[in-house]
């Protein structure tokens, strides 16, 4: 077993704080969606958080601060330590396709957890950008009059509702794949806890 640190402490801390924020935001967000669904379904209330709309809104508008503050700390450390550029770049579509093919055939090596393959790079960069989109569209839903430029960019208030929902669905999709990958390579879970 390698003794070198794969994930520094700041990364593990922000990762797990992000888990708390995302679970609370998604579960309360489903409850808020249920109050006025724009698709032909509701989320089962057993998997939502808040008990009623007012409670769900309180959870949502509390956890948003954790998501944003924690996300900023993450980005600050990530850029400041140059980890962002070292770990996630270079990244080419060709490499993503090649690694994806290898992964589907079960031939993608995971012997060095400190090295992200192209699919991981793409997935993690995607989820960073998706989270930024969630925050921006959420800002429009919360304060649509105060952020006119952002509101118009996202297709007005009603457009921002759809953007926020789709970005949530993509985030949940990422989490599902992420958990599956962790289940397939459990060492990655240990590494995110202990750093090694």
């Amino acid at each position, binding site marked *: 077993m390698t003794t070198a640190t794969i994930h520094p402490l700041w990364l593990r801390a922000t990762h797990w704080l992000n888990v708390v924020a995302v679970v609370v935001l998604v579960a309360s967000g489903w409850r808020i969606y249920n109050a006025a669904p724009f698709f032909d379904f509701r989320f089962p209330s057993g998997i939502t958080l808040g008990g009623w709309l007012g409670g769900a809104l309180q959870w949502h508008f509390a956890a948003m601060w954790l998501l944003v503050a924690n996300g900023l700390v993450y980005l600050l450390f990530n850029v400041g330590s140059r980890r962002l550029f070292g770990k996630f770049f270079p990244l080419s579509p060709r490499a993503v396709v090649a690694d994806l093919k290898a992964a589907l055939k079960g031939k993608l090596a995971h012997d060095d957890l400190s090295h992200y393959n192209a699919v991981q790079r793409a997935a993690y960069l995607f989820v960073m950008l998706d989270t930024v989109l969630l925050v921006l569209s959420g800002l429009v839903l919360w304060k*649509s*009059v105060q952020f006119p430029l952002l509101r118009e960019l996202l297709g*007005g208030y009603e457009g921002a509702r759809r953007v926020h929902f789709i970005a949530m669905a993509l985030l949940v999709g990422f989490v599902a794949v992420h958990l599956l990958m962790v289940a397939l390579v459990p060492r990655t879970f240990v590494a995110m806890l202990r750093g090694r």
Partner: protein
Amino acid sequence: MKLSNRTRPAVDADAVVKEALRQLDQPLRRQFLRRSLTLGGLSMLTGCAIVDDSSVDSALMAVSRLNDRVQGWLFDPNRLAPTYPESMITRPFPFNAYYEEDEIRQVDGESFRLEVTGRVADKHRWTLPELRALPQADQITRHICVEGWSAIGKWGGVPFSDFLRRVGADTSAKYVGFKCADDYSTSIDMATALHPQTLLTLSYDGQVLPPKYGFPMKLRMPTKLGYKNPKHIQAIFVTNNYPGGYWEDQGYNWFGGS
């Protein structure tokens, strides 16, 4: 685990204990895994019921108060909500209240008097003709409900800042509160009360405001969510004491602005 020699030799004590532990272990592990995959499990792991705990409730309320302050700070008194052409009006405009449509209150316009109290110079009670005689304005704006849906409507009436100045309101006071004929109440910040699009509406889409939209009057603010826009207003008061409101007292955010 090591048992002493005094146990009966017929059974292998070690093996029994191991088997018992294994049997005990498996459902527990399954249960643990199953629970840890649910939100309910999350609360069990932290050792408290996250939704019912009153300390969590008060923490969430404290964040909600913080969010009031942040929104007050973000609020630009000159920033206007978007307006729309007549063709975009939502028809029929949805009815919404804390009660059903068949429980809409009927207010008698003849005997109606609007009470204005608190930190105001002129406390006389207004009749509807008096209010209709004041300079009027109208707007086509988006009503956004706390539930998420929105609808565009056309309201007409007295710009509320004109009204507040006319009654000699202390515009340095913190709050304007409303009491309504349908036992509803709410309150708003002074900055929003003075916003150019805040309208004491007497009409909807060119007609006298119908009962379902709040006859005889509704305070319309396109910068606030629907529950902050009181209907069937009977009394307006200007105060420095936080008045709360029907939904706000139950946990909806007080500022409720967009």
